[in-house]
């Protein structure tokens, strides 16, 4: 039974992606009998090329993806390099989980109300410092270059990259390397970059690719913060897909294939960038540059990373404030009055989306955790080590732009009469949740002292008893944390719920984004807050349950 798990996991991950790509490829070439497309042709691509501003949309997706990833990566590396081992670093480590649990859409809203011309930051300094009696007519949110969108993505990708880096650090003996490079006279950052980074980067390469692919193709953050004239490619594909003129569906499918190419190009450019950086580092190294004078860079790194954490937290706070605000005019720092009106009136309406989100989240995260445990246990028993092929399979759903294969998957599901079914929706969520759950669980699972297992077997217990009675209880905290990560990912999923759910399963996230471009900031605030609280509840549970279960076991407490 356990033997089936790796094959099963493979199917769960790869199957939908391949089915989706196929489902998008055929209509892209004109073949979709359901709506009259009977012949293969290049017509849709021609129509696609005729779309106004297409090149600009593609360039937007490309640059937003590359810049977001590059900046997040540099900031995280500089921070780890410059501050590892300090109290500040440990403080930041503790913030990673809460920051991760804030869904992208909520973080984007929060950023919007912070930086918009009538937003909190401007109000802090107006009109006394700036003389702005009315908000300045500056295009900040929805700016045509996508800078606001990049910022919204960076503040979320930094905690993610920090998480994967922290998981990888112990394995590459970063501490010892640090001592060696310091004794050779290298500054903290330079020593890290030359001595540790190559090994670290090998470990986090796939997550970085995942960030890149996501940043090129994200839709919900684009709707909230991104340019609107024209929007990035993924947003336009969504618009074409929903157009009442069914001919546009072929254009949407060809657009999905185009997006594959755009994301692929971004990955290619990044790989070239890797080689260029390696070359540069080699040159610097042989030149003997020690980089001792890195104080400025260290302070810049910590400032930027603190700012990113601050933005997310401040954003959530502002949204909470908006949700209880009466009339709040510019340039007031606080509302004129407070009221619970919005909550009272909208909470009943949130019941169904909240319930749906929780049900789908629990189902997909539990399934993902079970499959992950099965895969890891199989790996243990068979004495295998993860291969590159397995890793790539794991990351495939994260490397292919969501819009590309979800569109096709939707076609397949409609054909199979599975659209709008809860099971289908949970399966699609599973595809995205599983890689993160496995990622979160793998290292703690493998780091377990196997001698406990040997001891248990010597005490005449079989492998199953070892798994259920020894390994699982001992690793309960990482298991629940991984499940909480999966839950958080599921809560934040927008496009899969929108497309595969066929409107039958509104979740708190689809609601929030539907209200996104709308005006009622108070309801948006309440929705975003609820959206952010759900994953937080998951993580709290993951902390509290083991603490409670093992309150009398000192050795089961997390290392201080």
């Amino acid at each position, binding site marked *: 039974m356990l033997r089936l798990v790796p094959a099963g996991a493979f199917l769960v991950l790869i199957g939908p992606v391949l089915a989706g790509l196929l489902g998008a490829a055929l209509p892209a070439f004109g073949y979709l009998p359901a709506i009259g497309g009977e012949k293969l042709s290049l017509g849709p691509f021609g129509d696609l090329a005729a779309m106004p501003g297409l090149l600009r949309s593609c360039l937007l997706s490309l640059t937003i993806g590359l810049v977001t990833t590059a900046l997040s990566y540099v900031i995280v590396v500089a921070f780890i390099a410059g501050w590892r081992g300090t109290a500040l670093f440990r403080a930041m480590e503790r913030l990673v989980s809460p920051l991760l649990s804030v869904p992208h859409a909520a973080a984007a809203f929060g950023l919007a109300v912070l930086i918009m011309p009538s937003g909190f930051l401007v109000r802090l300094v107006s009109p006394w410092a700036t003389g702005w009696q009315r908000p300045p007519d500056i295009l900040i949110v929805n700016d045509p270059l996508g800078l606001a969108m990049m910022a919204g993505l960076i503040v979320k990708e930094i905690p993610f990259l920090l998480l994967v880096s922290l998981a990888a650090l112990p394995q590459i003996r970063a501490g010892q390397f640090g001592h060696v490079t310091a004794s050779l006279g290298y500054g903290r950052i330079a020593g890290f970059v030359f001595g540790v980074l190559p090994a670290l980067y090998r470990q986090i390469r796939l997550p970085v690719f995942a960030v890149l692919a996501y940043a090129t193709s994200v839709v919900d953050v684009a709707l909230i913060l991104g340019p609107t004239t024209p929007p990035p490619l993924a947003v336009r594909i969504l618009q074409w897909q929903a157009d009442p003129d069914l001919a546009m569906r072929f254009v949407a499918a060809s657009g999905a294939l185009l997006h594959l190419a755009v994301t692929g190009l971004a990955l290619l450019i990044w790989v070239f960038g890797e080689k260029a950086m390696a070359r540069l580092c080699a040159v610097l190294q042989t030149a003997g540059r020690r980089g001792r004078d890195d104080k400025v860079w260290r302070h810049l790194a910590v400032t930027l990373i603190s700012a990113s954490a601050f933005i997310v937290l401040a954003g959530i706070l502002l949204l909470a404030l908006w949700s209880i605000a009466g009339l709040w005019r510019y340039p007031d720092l606080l509302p004129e009055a407070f009221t619970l009106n919005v909550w009272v009136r909208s909470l009943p309406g949130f019941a169904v989306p909240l319930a749906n989100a929780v049900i789908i989240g629990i189902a997909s995260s539990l399934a993902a955790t079970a499959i992950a445990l099965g895969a890891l246990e199989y790996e243990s028993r068979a004495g295998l080590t993860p291969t590159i092929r397995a890793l790539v399979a794991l990351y495939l759903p994260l490397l292919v732009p969501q819009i590309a294969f979800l569109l096709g998957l939707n076609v397949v599901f409609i054909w199979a009469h599975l659209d709008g079914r809860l099971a289908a929706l949970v399966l699609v969520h599973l595809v995205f949740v599983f890689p993160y759950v496995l990622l979160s669980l793998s290292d703690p699972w493998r780091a377990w*002292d196997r*001698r*406990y297992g*040997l001891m248990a077997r*010597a*005490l*005449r217990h079989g492998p199953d008893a070892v798994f259920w009675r020894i390994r699982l209880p001992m690793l309960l905290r990482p298991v629940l944390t991984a499940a909480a990560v999966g839950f958080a990912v599921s809560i934040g999923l927008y496009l899969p719920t929108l497309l595969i759910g066929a409107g039958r399963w509104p979740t708190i996230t689809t609601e929030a984004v539907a209200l996104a471009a709308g005006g009622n900031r108070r309801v948006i605030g309440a929705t975003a807050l609820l959206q952010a609280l759900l994953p937080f509840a998951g993580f709290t549970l993951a902390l509290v349950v083991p603490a409670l279960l093992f309150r009398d076991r000192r050795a089961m407490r997390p290392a201080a």
Partner: protein
Amino acid sequence: MSKISGMSTTNNIGAKTGLTLDKVEITLHGEPLVAANAHISPGEILTVMGPSGSGKSILLAYVAGFLDPVFSATGRIRLNGLDVSDLPPERRGMGLLFQDPLLFPHLSVGGNMMFGLAPAIKGHAARREAVEAALRHVGMGDFFDRDPATLSGGQRARVALMRTLLSRPEALLLDEPFSNLDTARRGQVRERVFAEARQLGLPVLLVTHDVADAKAAGGPCIELA
């Protein structure tokens, strides 16, 4: 020392003949690593000595059934007349003691012992009594509900030993079990382990780099290169 009820080790199948390592040879990528051909009588202690990296722990792993698949091994292991070479570890009946007592941190002291207790003893009351008796035997009679993390090094070693013995092993495999203890404690624990093994008539395979252990064992000794 009095015999502990529930800890007799009469083998249903055959007579107690001891533990035999029959022409055991372990290689890694064709390179020979360690070889042993020995018989350990009941109550006898075979000491395997050698510097770190000489493969002594690998030999022990093979006997216990945990050999890493990267190694290849030939030779048979027989315990009390039964060829256990192809059996999974949990069916071999070999008690194991490591350097660290490896008490399961999520279970109480009593919970650890209950986990080890052989299934032959049925009924909650009888099982609890067996564990309590074992704890009294080592002078830790009221430690059932204690958190293993609150025990001293010596106490942990005693609990680990009792847990192993409660599983009614037919042999004992010791992988440097005393090296983590301070010198004062070391002798006591070592004596206790050897005495129990002798009394229960268990063949013992001891892997160590400490000459004092070999001397106290008083049995044959294999030196690995």
